[in-house]
């Protein structure tokens, strides 16, 4: 099973996403903040990271920036966020995000994006 790490400070969204992704046969691990997410990304080796932007102490941009410092395996990274300004989108892409999705995001769109990113990563590997 493909493993997805969800980094999201809102508990209910974490729960909702977990349930939904689980329903579609993804293994899901969760982190409630940026620091925990970074640690989980390094230890659990997920196939894809689904990350919020606005989180206390360490935001999603910082998590991605830290992750991309590693020169080893690059885990696909998708932002799922309520920050919908064009500057935020540009920043996310510049940091190396594979996709930038807005909340609320349709389940079909989310699943489609996750699939595309995973497949692309497999091809490149």
């Amino acid at each position: 099973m493909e493993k997805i790490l969800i980094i999201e400070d809102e508990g209910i969204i974490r729960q909702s996403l977990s349930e939904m992704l689980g329903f579609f046969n993804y293994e899901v691990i969760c982190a409630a903040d940026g620091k925990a997410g970074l640690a989980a990304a390094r230890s659990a080796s997920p196939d894809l990271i689904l990350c919020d932007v606005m989180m206390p102490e360490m935001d999603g941009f910082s998590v991605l920036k830290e992750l991309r410092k590693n020169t080893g395996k690059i885990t696909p990274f998708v932002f799922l966020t309520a920050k919908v300004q064009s500057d935020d989108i540009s920043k996310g892409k510049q940091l190396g995000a594979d996709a930038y999705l807005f909340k609320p995001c349709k389940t079909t769109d989310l699943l489609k994006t996750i699939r595309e990113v995973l497949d692309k990563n497999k091809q490149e590997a």
Partner: protein
Amino acid sequence: MNTVAVQGAGPTIEQLTLLLNNVSHAVLFESPQHEILFINNNFCELFGIPVGPELLMGTNCSQAAEQSASLFMDPDGFVKGIRKVYTEGKPVSNEELVMHNGRSVYRDYKPIRTETGLSGHLWIYKYTQELRAILQEVQTQKNFYEKLLNNIPADIAIFNSRHQYVFINKVAIPKEDLREWLIGKDDFDYCRLRNKPDNLARCRREYFHESLKSGDMVEFEEENPSAEGKKVHNLRRFYPLKEEDGTIQNVIGYGINITRIRERENHMKQQEQALRDLVDSMDQLVVVVEESGSIVYANPRWCDLLWKPGPADPEKKLASYLHKGKEAFVKQLQHFFEKPVQQHRHARVSLVPEDGKEHILSYYIASFTNLQEGPKRLAIFFTDITGQLKAEKELRKMAKEERNLNQLKSNFLSMVSHELRTPLSIILSSAELLEMFAGTSDGQKGKLVQTYTGRIVQQVDKMTQLISEFLFLSKVEAGKVPYHPQPVNLVVFLQKLLDDMYRPWRDGRAVDFSVKGEGQLVMGDELMLTHAFSNLLNNAFKYSPGQPSPKIRLAFYKKSWEVLIADQGIGIQPGQLKKLFQPFTRGANVGTIEGSGFGLNIVKIFVKMHKGKIKVRSSEGKGTAIQVSFPCKRT
């Protein structure tokens, strides 16, 4: 000639006779009864008497005179003159008589009196060329000085010690007969002649007596009406002529017409007063200072500003009233006194008057560059800018508050948008999951669940859209959507927009597009233009359901380009037209047609950024035409 001594130790008759025969004049001495007592050779020669003087002794002189009258150009005058002399008994000197032979003689007469009475009549006829020359010279001189006196542009008169006229020039009295009449008379006589009040004469008399008494020149001014009724000003002087013994026999009086000078003075005084009134009425405080810093003049603003009644104290220096900026002000003044320039850039100083409220004044210094005499002075013009500065400070504060408010609003909207998205995400994902689960169950229940979850998803979409638009509107209003003009091929741009979104629209209608004029590149922001035209086209389609396709026409003119979007839809009510471009406003006739109410507000802002204008024509029930025109900025 005094009494002749004929007896005693004096000369003999023969000696006297010899003497008198050798004088150059013609001499005749007759008795009171007109018998000739003595006659000399020159007399006989002059009158052409053929016999010697000794033969004429004792003859009647009157008869001889009448006989001799014919020798003269005016014989009657000659005889009358003699008779007059006999009658008056007064001496005569240098009476000129012209003879037929062209000779002029000058006649003297003197009655000779002794203790006993009249001894006789002495006649002397002088006819030497020398005397004539002297007399002519005297006459010439007299004429010269009279001409001089008559041509000096001043009233000139000479008075005796009794203030009677001895001489008066033409300037004073042009008429000769009046001048002659005045000789020997005074101003009181003149006033009586002219039937005028004598206050003028009295006034002159007073000054005359003053000059006699003091022996010095006395000056005074007279104001009299002219013949035309205008005021004439004369400056008059009495100048006493002192004799060698210190007595005053004559006084020269002269007057100069100073009417024009007085008029000019009055005019200048009026101008000066007008300028003073102007300075006094100025809103600025005007202060004139001397080099010591003392105040020479301050206009009435002084009292207003300093809460001090009355004029400025000349003993107190201007600097003593000043507060902040005083040192710089004093330096500026000193610099100006050393090197005056016409203008000076405005500087500031503060002043604290009696009421204790500080006033900030802006000032500039001007020097009186034309003042060559007297102490140097500077004028300082103060403008009270206290109120202005206060207003500026208020404005800056308000602007800052507004900026803060805008930032607060922006932050609030951003936060609200962000926070609302989270619950919407949950609603959406839950509804979608329900939809998925409902899809697995059969029957009516499953279908119903799908219907309801479908509605939830749809409304979440709408709310998300609304949040996005709302956030976008706030960004646009805050000026955070930058205007980036680029060259745009309008025909290509619009074609693409229409092909992507309106051919067809969701209800199957396709927009009708036409171009008028020659296409050209213009400067524009494609994102803004896309948003604006999409909004207008969406409205055209939305508000004309079931009607023919809306039309869009692009037109190019010399100095502008236009887009006209017209539909045959529900139109806009007349009362709604004015509020059309205000946010959160929708027409009362929109019914169930959806809309956020601020799309047109954003369109208006984007059109304005392109320096464009929007015109709307609409008829309720018939349709709407929106014309957007832009100035042509060709690339």
